[in-house]
Structure formats: C-alpha cells, structure tokens
C-alpha cells in the first residue's frame, strides 16, 4: 500500500514548514483527500499516527477532510458535488465536464508552536 509513501512525503513537508517557520512542534495537520485520489483515508490516518512519532509532528492531531468529486459542466455550467463516481453532469447529463476537485491530496494547513 502506498499510504506509507504518501505519509513520508507529508511528514517531509511538515518538517520543512516547521523549519521555515522556526516552529518546535506541529500540533495539528489538516489535509484534504479527494475521493478519487487513490488514497484510503483510514490507512492514511493509521500510517500518519504510526510514523509521526519520530518527527516534528509527534503528538500532533491529524484532520482529514474528505473531498467529494466536484465537476463543472461545460454545457450548462452547473457545478456539482457527485455522490456516485460518474463523470457526467447530473443536471443535463452532458459528459463534457471539468473536474474541479476530488482527485488530489492536499496539505491544507498546519498548526505549530
């Protein structure tokens, strides 16, 4: 499972931000996980809590916001948050849609002391 690799990348980012901000500790990490990012949130959380101990994030809280797939229809311009994974406008059924959110993983914010 690649959740471990993703957590490694995340912890490296946290270390860099802590250093840049001269922080001693990161007390909260907020991430946004798209439903189509290919990450299993439960496994990500487990991996984070396992590997944070030896890092600046030791003891830190991990907040995951799960981002539904969000598309903008290029025909009728409706923006929809989808419940089903189907790249099709729920209003006009056009398949000419642009993905706005839900396919990526983001580090959103850090709380540090």
């Amino acid at each position, binding site marked *: 499972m690649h959740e471990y690799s993703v957590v490694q990348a995340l912890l490296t980012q946290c270390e860099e931000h802590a250093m840049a901000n001269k922080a001693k500790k990161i007390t909260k990490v907020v*991430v946004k996980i798209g439903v189509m990012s290919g990450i299993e949130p439960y496994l990500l959380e487990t991996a984070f809590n396992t590997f944070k101990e030896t890092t600046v994030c030791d003891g830190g809280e991990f907040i995951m916001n799960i981002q539904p797939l969000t598309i903008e229809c290029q025909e009728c311009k409706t923006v929809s948050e989808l419940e089903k994974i189907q790249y099709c406008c729920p209003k006009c059924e056009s398949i000419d849609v642009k993905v706005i959110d839900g396919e990526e993983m983001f580090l959103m914010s850090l709380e540090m002391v």
Partner: protein
Amino acid sequence: MCKDCGCSITTNKHQHEHTHVDEQGREYNHVHDHEHDEGKNVHESGHHHHDHDDSHKHQEAHAHLHDNPQLNDAKTIAVITKILDKNDHEARHNRAHFDEHGVLCINLMSSPGSGKTTLLEHMADLAPFKFGVVEGDLETSRDADRLHVKGIQAHQIQTGSACHLDAFMVHKALHHMDMEAMDVCFVENVGNLVCPASYDVGSHLNIVLVSIPEGNDKIEKYPVMFRQADLVLITKTDLLPYFDYDIEHEKIMARKLKPNVDILELNIKEEASIMRVIEWIEFKRKMRG
C-alpha cells in the same frame, strides 16, 4: 549532460513548470527557471530525493503568499500544497527529458499477470518504432531478462516493498538507458491496480491493461486507475469462451469514468490485434510532431 542529475540539458538553467494551487484548491501553472550548479542540487545515487534547492524556497514563498489572514494567529498557517508535489515536480522533469529526445513515454499499468511483458515481447518484432523499457517489480529482474532476450533495451528497478514506481525511481533508471536509441520508452509499472495510479512517473500516456480472467468488475472496483487511462487494453480475449465476461459492459464502465478513453481488445496470438495497439502508439507519436 548536466553533471548533477545526468539530464541532457547542457545549459545551466532549465525551465520547470510548477503547479500551484490557490485557496480553493484550484491549480495554476507557471514556469520558472532553475539553475543547475554543483553543490546546489545534490544528486546521490541510491537516494530518491534529490530536491532542487529552489523548489523549497519556492514553497516557502508560496506558503507565505497564501497565509490566511483569518487563521494567521502566528500558530496556524495555510500551506495549500499537493502532498505529492515533489514527485510531480520530478515527473515534469522526466517528461522534459523525454521531450528533449523526442521520446514518447508510456506508463503500462495493470494487476499482476495481465500481459504487460508479453505485449512488449511481441511488439519487438512488429513495431516500426524503436523502444526501451523501464521495468518495475518488487523482486527479480525476470521481466527485464525476458525483454533482453528479444533484443529490447530494458532496465530493471527492484522496488523491494514499494508497490508502485515513482518519478524518482524512473529518473534513476533513465540514467542507465540510451534515449538516443529509442522512439518510445515504456514504463512497465509494478503489477497493482491501486498504488501506481497516484504517482505520475513522467509519462505522456497511460495504458491500463485488464485481462478477461480477472473478471467483469475490475473497472468499477478500481476507478482511480481506469480514470488515468488514455487507452484501456482488454487482454487475453482468446479466453472469452471460458469466462462470463461482458466486454460491452466493461467498455461502458470505462467510459463512465473517462468518456473519451480509447479501448482496444488484445489477443496475443492474433497479430492483427497487436498491430492495432502499435498503430495507436504510432498515431499518438505522430500527433506529437
């Protein structure tokens, strides 16, 4: 070749495109130069992270730029960055390498045993283009050996426990390959329908294979992978008489995830079906000029 990373860009400066993301998580691209001078960009072999010094500064500046005034109580900082941004940066670097050599890079992904290596073996005798292969497997160099027997240039990466290839591994492998001697570079990813989908390796196109014996539900079960596909190859169609497999249903499913995806059927014993895959690749190659 630049000394630090072995990339063939001769000048000190080269451009990198960066994707930045604003508060709403929307992306925008911009290009910036970065210098390649010794000591700055340390490239250690056996080490996957050879970060470009300036990308760090860049990130800091970026984080600063996006400090949210409401949250900015000197404790919380908004740092909206893709978690895999370093991999994405390296992937763009790899793509720049390929572009410079006029090489089309194709990432082959599927579950174990769907027929990736077999397809590559059979293409050797039929393809009008020259190709090389970066092979990814957990263990053994069996697949690279199979390709060497067919006279194909191949370099094996043994990922150990990593269930996917990332852009850093592919970059390292490229140092072992002669880009001048190829028109197409395939990356045969680790057999896995989950993890490789999250990692851009620097390919221009993704081909996802799914074989008849795997059953009728793979596309629905692994939407993230099939969403990445530019071409879905339904393989081992010679086995259709032995399995209840509804190809038309699978095609509908694939196009629910990606309305414009190309789909071809492949039976390795039927040369015409291999030729169709080759023609697809040739077409894409020509369309890139």
